[in-house]
């Protein structure tokens, strides 16, 4: 009998149906992966299983008995625990204190020793190595997640729901998490694992449920399927359309970066001596797992973040902010011909309440094209926007609605339209297709290639290796702030790059996810 079952669940938000007769079942000792693109209804479904939302129709059954959850607490009491993507931990408390929070052992006062003993016991049983007395704020993210898992186990949860657990993890931590998930499954726990990363699904799950636009479109046995099959179910058509790309006409180096060092917000050196040249007419792809210094590199090149040392020049202009002689700013870098598609369009690319027209002049408002003497000329802004909207196929084709009302893909088109419009010498695109559907992603890719062919130097930063491979003329692999190698597109292969992305040869042995191996001991 399935330990948990959803039967024909329907959830509507106004006129929008987020879950349309969704059914799933999961058994003790098995790992069920729930996959789907952003907005497919995964989170809504999980929020109903964990008591945060209530289904409009259909029912949830545990061991065959219908259940109703009034609140997350109800669900927890019935043995359903959710490990959230964003941890619900109190940083200043210790591991043990966080785990027992809300159910503290007591001897009149808080019994710290008993709490630590129980945490030790739990972590030994499930191979979740942790120091009960360590302060949570001092732990790396991977270990913080273990605290979350321990907390859920401490509540006695039989069913554990993981909401995109690997989003915040390094590859190493991801591998360790998978070992833990396997371990939990052998202890007859039911694991539900939400993700949209196909490799992880293949590596760790037993069964797969594919959601698309609120409906279940596939129920698969992992050992009998392929990433390609899952992907085509997720998007509803064949994936990875090839980009039509003529051979590059590589020109002069436009940007020269020498021994660049940049610090992260935390004061840690994030870029450790990078040398790069980006030529006109080429797309240079930076491949790497996120958080390896890409953001800092790009922010240094765009004048948003001071570099600690080294140089970066565009033609003859010094790009780096805070570099003694010239005081560079983001505005000056832009004026010099650098366009930038930031990695997070909602947070960094657009002012969402601004109209499409207003967003199309963001950063250009002082240009004589749009204002004179500090006074905006709205008829010029409007005709500018009316020219760009059809050219970039922004839908709905209106200039006077807030950008926040557009879909993700159309928001990204607004950013592209603005950034491409000034005929930049250097175009930096960071994660330009994140969260976009295939159609929109292809549109973005075509525009990038178009820019390259017009002689622009393009720096493409992407966590999607497929995207890097499809678009780049040269590929630089970044790992922990250093360039591990630079390849011409023809002479590289996915395995080689994948290897370098995780640190190269010395990590090769750990590269494959070996589920038979004993739990890794965390230092």
């Amino acid at each position, binding site marked *: 009998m399935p330990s948990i079952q959803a039967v024909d669940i329907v959830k509507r938000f106004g006129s929008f149906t987020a879950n349309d007769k969704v059914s799933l079942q999961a058994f003790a000792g098995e790992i069920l992966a729930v996959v789907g693109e952003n907005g497919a209804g995964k989170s809504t479904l999980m929020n109903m299983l964990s008591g945060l939302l209530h289904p409009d129709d259909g029912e949830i059954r545990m061991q065959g008995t219908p259940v109703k959850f009034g609140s997350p607490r109800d669900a927890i009491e019935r043995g359903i625990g959710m490990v959230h993507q964003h941890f619900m931990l109190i940083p200043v408390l210790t591991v043990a204190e966080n785990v027992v929070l809300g159910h503290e052992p007591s001897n009149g006062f808080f019994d710290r020793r008993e709490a630590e003993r129980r945490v030790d016991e739990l972590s030994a049983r499930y191979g979740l190595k942790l120091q009960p007395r360590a302060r949570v704020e001092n732990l790396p993210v991977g270990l913080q997640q273990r605290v979350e898992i321990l907390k859920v186990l401490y509540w006695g949860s039989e069913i554990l729901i993981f909401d995109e657990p690997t989003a915040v993890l390094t590859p190493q931590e991801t591998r360790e998490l998978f070992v833990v998930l396997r371990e939990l499954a052998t202890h007859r726990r039911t694991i539900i694992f939400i993700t949209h990363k196909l490799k992880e699904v293949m590596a760790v799950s037993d069964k797969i449920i594919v959601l698309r636009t609120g409906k279940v479109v596939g129920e698969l046995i992992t050992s009998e399927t392929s990433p390609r099959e899952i992907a085509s179910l997720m998007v509803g058509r064949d994936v990875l359309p090839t980009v039509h790309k003529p051979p590059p006409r590589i020109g002069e180096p436009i940007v020269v970066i020498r021994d660049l060092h940049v610090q992260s917000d935390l004061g840690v050196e994030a870029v450790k001596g990078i040398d790069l040249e980006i030529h006109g007419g080429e797309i240079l792809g930076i491949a790497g797992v996120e958080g390896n210094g890409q953001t800092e590199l790009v922010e240094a090149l765009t004048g948003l973040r001071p570099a600690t040392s080294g140089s970066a020049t565009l033609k003859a202009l010094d790009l780096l902010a805070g570099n003694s002689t010239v005081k560079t700013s983001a505005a000056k870098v*832009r004026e010099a011909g650098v366009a930038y598609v930031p990695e997070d369009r909602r947070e960094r*690319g657009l*002012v969402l309440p601004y109209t499409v027209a207003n967003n199309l002049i963001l950063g250009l408002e002082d240009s004589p094209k749009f204002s004179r003497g500090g006074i905006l000329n*709205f008829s010029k802004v409007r005709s500018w926007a009316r020219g760009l909207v059809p050219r970039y196929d922004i839908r709905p084709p209106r200039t006077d609605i807030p950008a926040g009302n557009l879909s993700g893909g159309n928001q990204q088109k607004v950013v592209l339209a603005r950034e491409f419009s000034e005929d930049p010498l250097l175009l930096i695109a960071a994660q330009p297709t994140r969260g976009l559907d295939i159609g929109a992603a292809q549109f973005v890719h075509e525009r990038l290639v178009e820019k390259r062919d017009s002689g622009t130097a393009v720096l493409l930063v992407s966590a999607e290796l497929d995207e890097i491979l499809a678009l780049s003329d040269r590929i630089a692999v970044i790992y922990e702030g250093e360039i591990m190698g630079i390849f011409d597109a023809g002479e590289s292969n996915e395995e080689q790059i994948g290897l370098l992305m995780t640190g190269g040869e010395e990590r090769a042995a750990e590269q494959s996810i070996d589920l038979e191996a004993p739990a890794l001991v965390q230092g």
Partner: protein
Amino acid sequence: MGLAEETSLERNFVWQWASGAAVPIVSVILAVLVGAAVVLAVGENPLNAYWQLLRGSFGSWYYFTETVIAAIPLMLAGFAVAFAFRGGLFNIGAEGQLLAGAVASAYVGYKFHVPGIVLVPIAVLAGCLAGALWAGIGGVLKAWRGAHEVITTMMLNYTAILVTSYLVEPGPTGHPGPMEQTIQIGNPETPPMNATLPIIVPNSIVLNNRVHAGLLIALGAGVLVWFLLWRTTLGYKVRAVGLNPRAAAYAGINVKWTVAVTLFISGAFAGLAGMVNLYGLAPYQLTNSFSSGYGFNAIAVALLGRNSVVGVIAAAILFGSLQQGGTIMQANAGTSLHLVEVVQGLIIFFVGADAVVRYLAARGMVKLPGPQRQKAAA
């Protein structure tokens, strides 16, 4: 497609007011109802109290002009707070900036012996500049040192209040303060300042009215605020930084500079409020109790007016009417003037708690215009 489309949803302040007015209006109604319960609880007749309040503020042309007079400084200081809000800044220091403006313009008024036509513009500039600089301290600290503007502008309130006291009050030895007008109090022989703002409504229309040219200054300032925010590149940057500072920075807008300038301009309007009240109303003297909390009420006015120019004007008139009508209510109904403060407090409470109103809207108990309803339902 002409002007109709140009005044798009985002920029059209009339539309903004219409769509945003539901929550403030419901808040005011709720505040009045709860205020009535308070009056009832102390054993008085709320209908009579409110009738006297209404009569005292709008019941005659004279009362109405007094309401308008009370609204003038609230409008100006309200613009100050609203402008800062548009830039994502909470300027809680309008009171201090207002006093700074009053002190500076008072100084000009005593020291410059020139004709009024010259003096008044100088005083306007002095008041604006002083208020702007006072707020600008907070702006610079925020932009380049990361000090939160709520803390700095609030602390500068106390500084301004105490500096004003020092200037206008006699010291412990009875020695006059450095700003000599304290000597003038109670001495009608010496005109306290070398110029004042003229009365703009003829006596033949409303007898003995005191409506001064500050009204025109305030309305002009309203047009200026609107123009700055919605027609200039500066206003475009101010609003962009207010809505999404990160995206603004990524696009190359100098966020630090914009933050500092926003508070600077905001303070100028508050400083102007000080100047206008000093030059517009008898006894034309800077006293220790010069501002009866205009700068603080201005925060409520801006909130109630949803940071739009029309909204601020309407809210300022409402607060002005409470202030003016309250006096009459106290005299005629015997209800304490403090009821007015209760109602003002409740208005602020309900504006702040507009979640309550949205909740009622979601239940269909209150109807909101289109976009509001979608939000409430979400």
